[in-house]
């Protein structure tokens, strides 16, 4: 079943006399329980795509459909709840002067109502951290701990779709593995769909069911992650895969 769909999505940024085409008519679909990877070089439009999907920015053209219903640029709280974003810079995604618990509580109360049940202890347990850590500010936690807290905040409102924007790129290898393992487990357990943006094809191959390869704001290739990375059809994808393998070798 298709949960989320994008049709001819385009985004233009106009700066004085120059026009930057960040996205050029991208189509995508996300199935229920699926993890869709989005890969490409810097400036390929991966993060812009997530901004449009999340509602942080409005598309210049095209439409986004949630369960077949077109989303307007002014989202309802229920639509925000359905799609939760996890940011690349997790410590910066929490209010610098408030505790993690405060940030999570505010998010839950805003999206699920003031009387919504919230068990911070079980939430912390779910992401493999102690409840006490939630009483700290983001600056008092490590990058990996903050990323787990960001996952906890997203999961606290029981979303249907997680939007992950390069969530492991700022972490060390060990923390990356733990976060990926945690995310895969959570998506599997709660049957949550996810769009996972990354420039790391190895990570995408491990985690994602399908992958979209993007270049200069356009979709280059799409298909099952393992197949696209093992046997790329397009020359650009092949070059991208080869460049990763070259570095690894």
């Amino acid at each position, binding site marked *: 079943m298709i949960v989320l769909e994008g049709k001819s999505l385009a985004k233009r940024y106009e700066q004085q006399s120059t026009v930057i085409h960040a996205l050029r008519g991208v189509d995508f679909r996300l199935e229920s329980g699926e993890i869709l990877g989005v890969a490409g070089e810097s400036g390929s439009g991966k993060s812009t795509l997530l901004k449009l999907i*999340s*509602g*942080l920015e409005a598309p210049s053209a095209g439409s986004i459909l949630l369960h077949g219903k077109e989303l307007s640029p002014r989202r309802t*709280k229920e639509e*925000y*709840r359905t799609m*939760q*974003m996890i*940011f*690349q*810079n997790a410590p*910066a*995604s*929490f*209010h*610098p*002067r408030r505790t993690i618990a405060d*940030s999570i509580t*505010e*998010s839950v109360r*805003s*999206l699920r109502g003031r009387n919504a049940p919230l068990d911070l202890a079980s939430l912390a347990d779910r992401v493999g951290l102690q409840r006490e850590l939630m009483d700290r500010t983001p*600056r008092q936690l490590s990058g990996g701990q903050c990323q787990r807290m960001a996952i906890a*905040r997203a999961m606290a409102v029981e979303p249907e779709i997680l939007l992950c924007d390069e969530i492991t790129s700022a972490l060390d290898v060990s923390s990356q593995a733990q976060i990926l393992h945690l995310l895969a487990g959570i998506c599997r357990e709660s049957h949550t769909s996810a769009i996972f943006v990354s420039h790391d094809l190895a990570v995408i191959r491990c985690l994602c069911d399908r992958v979209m390869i993007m270049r200069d704001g356009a979709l280059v290739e799409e298909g099952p992650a393992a197949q696209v990375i093992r046997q790329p059809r397009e020359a650009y994808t092949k070059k991208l895969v080869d460049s990763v393998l070259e570095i690894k070798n």
Partner: protein
Amino acid sequence: MKKRIKTPERIRRRAIVFLALAGILVVISLIAPLICPNDPYATSAADMNRAPCAQFPFGTDRYGRCVCSRVLMGARTSIFSAVALVGLTFLAGSVLGLLAGWYGGVVDTLIMRLADVMLAFPQMVLAIAVAGILGGGMGNAMLAMGISGWTLYARLARAQVLSLKEEPYVHAARLSGCSGWTIMIKSLLPNMLGPLLVTAATQIGVMMIGIAGLSFLGIGVIEPQAEWGSMINTSRAYLQLAPWAVLAPAVATIITVMIFNYLGDCVRDVLEAKEAET
């Protein structure tokens, strides 16, 4: 000469000293009527232009009024008008800058073009024009200074908002369904206050000189109300005969402005040190 390094301890000590001095000034201005050695408004032909003595510690002016008592009462007018003016311009400018930065578009254009118009005139010239049209009095002098004073905070607040609104925690707040007002009050305001407070602290001295300047020109407070600028203006014609009547309010102005300026610097240093620590 060996330069002293600003250690957090030294910054803290300096801040405490200047905060205490500013506190003393505020307390003096509050209890001025209780500690005045004489009636600041009582005139006496027999005591005209008297040199400092036991009865009149700073001498008397050309109307025989006690300069010391008038300096103490003038502190109340000068300090409180400057603090109130800074408070009001800080509030108005910060709110307008916050709205301009957050909403952008027409709101931003309207507010910032209005600020540009205000900034096109030199502040003192605009203040003289406004005070000249509206007439004398402390209220009008404050309005004259405040009419362009808010622009400083508005521009600073707008710049802060434009930078902060791209922070991931503000994006996260938006995706948490928080309204614009909630984000402005809970996420933006607490994180943009530092630079605004530093500016406000340094502006107290500037406003004090501005109001004293208007009073000196005769378009600020109305005689016989005690105010340092008007005291200097009243006595300047008798500078050679009774220099104390000019020197006392002038020195009081200089000391007060210096203390508030140093306090502003201390607030900036403390906030910078705090930022560096975290």
